[in-house]
């Protein structure tokens, strides 16, 4: 094999490897964000109930809902903002309304701002864990059970939980 062919093959392999690397960036990105909690993606796993409560701190938690791409839902929250003690269990009720004449499936995707606060938000029960099938015109109440970690860093006094609501499929 000539010198040129050898080097050529190495460089082709390098190019293919870099193409694969572009796709490897996807899981790497998710793992990196998981470990560092940088992008505000909260855990979608069901949390254990907290045993300790920090009575000396108050954290403000705001709620936002946002329907994406003109999906035929109306999603509202009963309280736009609550003040909670770390470790204490809280319940917030959302209501969802299917505005269309068809059966629709709804998926809510949570995001927390500031991003670093995401790791301190523990959800014991959330409608975002599952998808909801809504019949034509149906109105349902959706429950969120959560607590804020007692380990939450002192500089976070206020955080916002935002739900983006997507229309998954039209259920025929």
């Amino acid at each position: 094999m000539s010198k040129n062919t050898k080097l050529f093959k190495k460089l082709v392999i390098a190019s293919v490897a870099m193409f694969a690397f572009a796709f490897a960036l996807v899981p790497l990105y998710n793992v990196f964000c998981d470990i560092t909690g940088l992008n505000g993606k909260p855990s979608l796993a069901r949390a254990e109930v907290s045993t300790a409560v920090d009575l000396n701190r108050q954290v403000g938690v705001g709620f936002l809902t946002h329907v994406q791409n003109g999906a035929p839902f109306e999603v509202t929250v009963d309280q736009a903002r609550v003040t909670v003690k770390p470790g204490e269990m809280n319940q917030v009720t959302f209501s969802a309304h299917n505005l269309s004449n068809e059966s629709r499936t709804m998926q809510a995707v949570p995001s927390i701002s500031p991003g670093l606060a995401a790791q301190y938000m523990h959800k014991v029960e959330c409608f975002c864990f599952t998808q909801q099938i809504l019949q034509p015109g149906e109105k349902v109440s959706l429950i969120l059970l959560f607590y804020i970690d007692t380990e939450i860093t002192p500089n976070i006094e206020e955080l916002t939980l935002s739900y983006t609501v997507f229309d998954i499929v039209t259920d025929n």
Partner: protein
Amino acid sequence: MTGAADNTQDSYPQATEQHEHHAPTGFKRWFFSTNHKDIGTLYLGFSLLMFLIGGAMAMLIRAELFQPGLQLMEPHFYNQMVTVHGLIMVFGAVMPAFVGLANWMIPLMIGAPDMALPRMNNWSFWILPFAFAMLLGSLFMEGGGPAFGWTFYAPLSTTYSNDNTAMFVFAVHIMGISSIMGAINVIVTIVNLRAPGMTWMKTPMFVWTWLITAFLLIAVMPVLAGAVTMVLTDKYFGTDFFNAVGGGDPVMFQHIFWFFGHPEVYIMILPAFGIISTIVPTFSRKKLFGYHSMVYATGSIAILSFVVWMHHMFTTGMPLAAELFFMYSTMLISVPTGVKIFNWVATMWRGAISFEVPMLFAIAFIVLFTIGGFSGLMLAITPADFQYHDTYFVVAHFHYVLVTGAVFSIMAGVYYWLPKWSGHMFDIRLAKTHFWLSLISVNILFFPMHFVGLAGMPRRIPDYALQFADFNAIISIGGFAFGLSQLLFVWVVLKCVRGGEKVPANVWQAAEGLEWDVPSPAPHHTFATPPVIK
């Protein structure tokens, strides 16, 4: 020499430089060519054509922005112009021009008979016209071409784009494959075909900068291919790489894109550094000051270019630590870049400088590229970036580094080597006119953009607030003047190719390098027997 080089040469006599040329003529000569000079010419001609097409789009953009309000076009068409102007200039004009210069000059500079992989060289050029035909063709289809900016951020390119996006994606794939093949060819040529005795530290600066550029290309062009592939599958095949509902993340698009995008900007400037490092010593009649530091600075810039990508994304929201890291790493790049600028100035210092046309462009490059570098430093300051982000200040910044940087260096290189390629001196009076017209108009065009940008004029919008009207009229006049001046460039080049005063082998007397040992015009085959470097 090595096997592949012998393959291209074994049917030709070794000794004479002026032997008869047996290759086919006309269309077949160019279509089947494996000759580095022919392919270099093809690349340069193609890049000039793309420069004019992309420039025509810029003229339309400036015509629309001449006055506030919507005069000439629909916003959707304006968006297509902005997008395709960017894509054409980056992938069609600047990059192929550098590849063309590499094809022409690297074998001549290192004393090689041709590129190491000549058949692949033919392929890497001839797939390009198809890529751009597809990209430009999409403009004429129902719904129009890409309109999401050359950065094709998701979800603009996925959820909100039209069905012609597939044509954009495949065009970028082909451009990427072409660039990667070109880069592989450059690396194999430089590593294997340097003349006996040409050690790494005797290799000309242009060759060095291209070697490093080629490694950058191999590292990031496949990542761009990956990014467009993800856009393709997200849009047409139901994947959710960038769609939050399926567990994806649109911000991840920006990470993947800028992981490609930042090294890409150095791909477009490192060969320019090589050209300037070649021209300045010739017309200063001194050796390049700090050759070794130039090599190390180029390498440092290349390595640093991989750890700064998030400075394009400061406003996406990131922790303080990341903001600080990317601010400082970005500023750190100004150190090796400063080394280069000071080395060029030191090369000129107390030199016997003469102001031939290539030198005029080189000096303009040094001054104006530095201005672009300074506005880059301003953008690197995270808190200030929140104000500058997506304004005309950014447009001013990257046009200073790409037009008065990359494009001026290409013109400097063309004026420097054109007599070697054609055997004729160009019309110096016309070329100087072209230089001065370009220099003045390009500053009228881009300098006021700093001010409207700082005052808050957003980029990529066909209309603007009334207080920006006067400056935009001035900018547009500068734009038309700069655009028209380039027609003069086309004329100077054509006139020089057709005829003119004959030039000797060493056109610029004081020029050093193997390319000046071969006759002018450079014969079809050179260095069939490698020269020995002492």
